[in-house]
């Protein structure tokens, strides 16, 4: 397991390096002088020269890359062109808001999805199963931004159960502010995960080893919850790991609709002001988040499934 962990994170690091390098080169490949674009009409020749030197844009590309990685290793993502603050600081200030949003969305939707899916699998083709299926399909079909707008209108504006905008103060305040955005992002996942768990569960329940467990008189509860679910959950973990990428993009919608601070809002704001160091920094962190979450999913699967430990 330890070897697996090292190898998996080695792979994650490799993926991250390839992704970041590609991104770096792509941004440099965009035509036009970035300094000109960043500074806009305010540009004076001195200012331009200073920024060019600061960003090392006068150096050959491999040297720029080396400088970029050198800074990155020291946790330095560059400096915000406008405020002069460190990009690392700005990004990490916003990151927790997005992380909490994504995590709470995943937790509630996975819990409900797994419960609904297992129930449907244990009672296939009953009325309850059909109702679950119908609800699941309509949940899957609902786009996050529509749900976000509707829930904002219904629960925040009309019913006034939850606050409409912002991130809130203190633990309960933050939690209260999380409810609607997490609901909006997670809703489509409930249905998706429920369908996945149901299909996966039905397949596993038909495997010969389940019959063996029953042949020893194990309780149905133990058969379903331990002998079957532990296998049926494997594809769900993978899907959630990969789904973090999708969640990041849904988080952008939610952060805008609910005017929440966070990585998504930061990126959108920075793009409109052409604040490239911040865009680059945020994208880098998001990529890192994605790579780490897929690696974590693989680790969880390896922990659940001894056969997977041999792979990678």
């Amino acid at each position, binding site marked *: 397991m330890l070897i697996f962990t090292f190898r998996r994170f080695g792979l994650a690091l490799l993926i991250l390096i390839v992704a970041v390098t590609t991104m770096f080169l792509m941004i440099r490949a965009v035509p036009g002088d970035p300094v000109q674009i960043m500074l806009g009409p305010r540009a004076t020749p001195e200012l331009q020269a200073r920024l060019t030197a600061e960003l090392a844009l006068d150096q050959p590309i491999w040297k720029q890359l080396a400088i970029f990685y050198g800074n990155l290793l020291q946790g330095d993502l560059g400096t915000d062109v406008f405020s002069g603050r460190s990009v690392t600081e700005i990004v990490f200030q916003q990151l927790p808001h997005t992380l909490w949003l994504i995590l709470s969305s995943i937790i509630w939707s996975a819990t409900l999805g797994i419960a609904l899916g297992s129930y449907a699998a244990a009672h296939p083709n009953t009325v309850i199963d059909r109702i679950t299926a119908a609800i699941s399909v309509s949940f899957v079909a609902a786009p996050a931004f529509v749900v976000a707008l509707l829930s904002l209108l219904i629960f925040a504006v009309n019913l006034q159960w939850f606050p409409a905008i912002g991130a809130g103060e203190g633990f309960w305040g933050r939690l209260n502010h999380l409810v609607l955005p997490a609901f909006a992002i997670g809703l489509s996942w409930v249905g998706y995960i429920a369908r996945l768990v149901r299909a996966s569960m039905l397949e596993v329940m038909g495997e010969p*080893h389940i*019959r*063996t467990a029953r042949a*020893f008189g194990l*309780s149905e509860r133990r058969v379903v919850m331990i*002998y079957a679910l532990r*296998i049926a959950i494997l594809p769900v973990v993978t899907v959630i790991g990969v789904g973090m990428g999708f969640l990041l993009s849904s988080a952008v919608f939610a952060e805008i609709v609910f005017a929440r601070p966070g990585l998504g809002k930061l990126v959108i704001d920075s793009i409109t002001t052409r604040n490239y160091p911040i865009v680059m920094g945020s994208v880098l962190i998001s990529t890192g988040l994605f790579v780490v979450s897929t690696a974590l999913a693989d680790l969880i699967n390896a922990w659940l*499934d*001894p*056969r997977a430990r041999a792979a990678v």
Partner: protein
Amino acid sequence: MSDTLLEIDRLSVDYETARGDLKALRDISFDIRKGEIVGIVGESGCGKSTLISSILRLTAPNTRFRKGEVRFKGQDLLQLPEHKMRDLRGADISIVFQDPMQTHNPVLSIGQQMLDIQHRSQAGKVEKRARAAQMLGAVGIPDPEARLEQFPHEFSGGMRQRIAIAMALMSEPDLLIADEPTTALDATLEVQIIERLQELQQELDCAILFISHHLGVIAELCDRVVVMYTGAVVESGDVREIFHDPKHPYTRRLIDCDPGHIKERARVLPTIPGEVPDLANLPGGCIFRDRCDQAVPRCASEVPPLSKLKEGHHAACWLNHEEVHQ
């Protein structure tokens, strides 16, 4: 109390399919006495696995019990409420299923699985582990303590089959059902497992229902044999008697294919020319007629009944009826 342990009485089981009802078992009757080893032999697809899963009621969801009784110690298992049935499973009756490669849970260690199946025992965890290790040792797995930590995929097919047998015998059941426990193994391993089963049977004094499609294996191990063909019993009786004086052409063919003692026989699957009838659309008359080289006119029109030829020897073939020869 009589010493009959299990009586299968006119059992008929169908599978509901898109093509209509598949008649997987028709009017199966035989019994097993305490401590006896009974073999069931027949080509693949004749309903052997259906029969043994029906005994423990662990059949596929599309199974329909049409008729008959499965009496264990006088009690009809088909009428038992589910929780009572569960009490019997793995306690009084244990099964070793057909495919050793798929019979264990792939994500739980062997030790965990062997611990779990002792759920009825009051013993502590340490004691249960020790018992699991002892059983693994008894079926010939070296270094059992350490191997409890391992997962099914870390064992060979032969080892997994031994583990399955160890697990089934752990509760010292009255009846052990083994579904082709040696089919997936090579000949040397097969002999080892059969010998081990014989020893354990002596030691634990349990009855065994042993399924195989090799008559040679059955001859080696069993006291009595039931020959099945397309879901029906065509002959049953004492192993020696049936081996030396088979009374059904199908049994005779099986013996021709597989004459040897298991230690010396060549490993070929029994092959009998001709096609097995479609279970969803069975022909009238004798079910073996299309492949039988001794058929008489009556075979096409009337189903031969399973009739008693002498004490403990039954066969279903018109050739055994005097009037046919006149």
